[in-house]
């Protein structure tokens, strides 16, 4: 079965600092999704990457998918307290033929931003 590993498991940064979260798959992916979750709440969709080498940005968050489509990084520039939460990567494997969107998730990276 597909496994997604995220690193680091947790991260504490000072406000204004940059940070990177990584997500690695044991299999080639069809799509890689990044979500953010605040404690006690659902997952908020951030970005989806499908093409090898693809990069997307939204405000101060940039996500990249490597050429082999097995590794993704999420980079936050000039972090703010509003960026705090749990970041989860989810993926659909390339050879999934079951239809629909059977997302498998990583274990998440907990981000704390200190003032």
């Amino acid at each position: 079965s597909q496994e997604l590993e995220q690193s680091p498991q947790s991260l504490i940064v000072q406000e204004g600092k940059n940070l990177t979260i990584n997500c690695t798959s044991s299999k080639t992916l069809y799509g890689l999704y990044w979500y953010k979750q605040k404690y006690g709440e659902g997952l908020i969709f951030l970005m989806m990457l499908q093409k090898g080498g693809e990069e997307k940005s939204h405000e101060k968050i940039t996500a990249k998918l490597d050429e082999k489509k097995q590794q993704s990084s999420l980079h936050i520039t000039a972090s703010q307290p509003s960026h705090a939460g749990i970041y989860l990567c989810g993926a659909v494997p390339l050879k999934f033929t079951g239809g629909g969107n059977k997302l498998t998730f990583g274990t998440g990276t907990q981000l704390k931003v200190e003032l």
Partner: protein
Amino acid sequence: EAGVVQSPRYKIIEKKQPVAFWCNPISGHNTLYWYRQNLGQGPELLIRYENEEAVDDSQLPKDRFSAERLKGVDSTLKIQPAELGDSAVYLCASSFRTGAYPYSPLHFGNGTRLTVT
């Protein structure tokens, strides 16, 4: 547009009791998912519906869990009887899947936090 709505937000029950969770997906979304999230872990899929049909329930513990999606809209997930290990957050998600866009992002509700004592 209204998001995915789940109720209740919190539920505390004693073991061996039944419990049910309700989900109203985003209007027009044909695919509905139930995920379970244990503390410190990512969500794990329990069941996926395409319209009224359960197309993937391989991860659903069928001896105690059941689900239904009436008329292809709202869905209910039931546990009977609940066990201590069922304590978790139960998340509902929905998406709009077409042949041209089969992997559209999932949109999640806020979940139901279940505590079994």
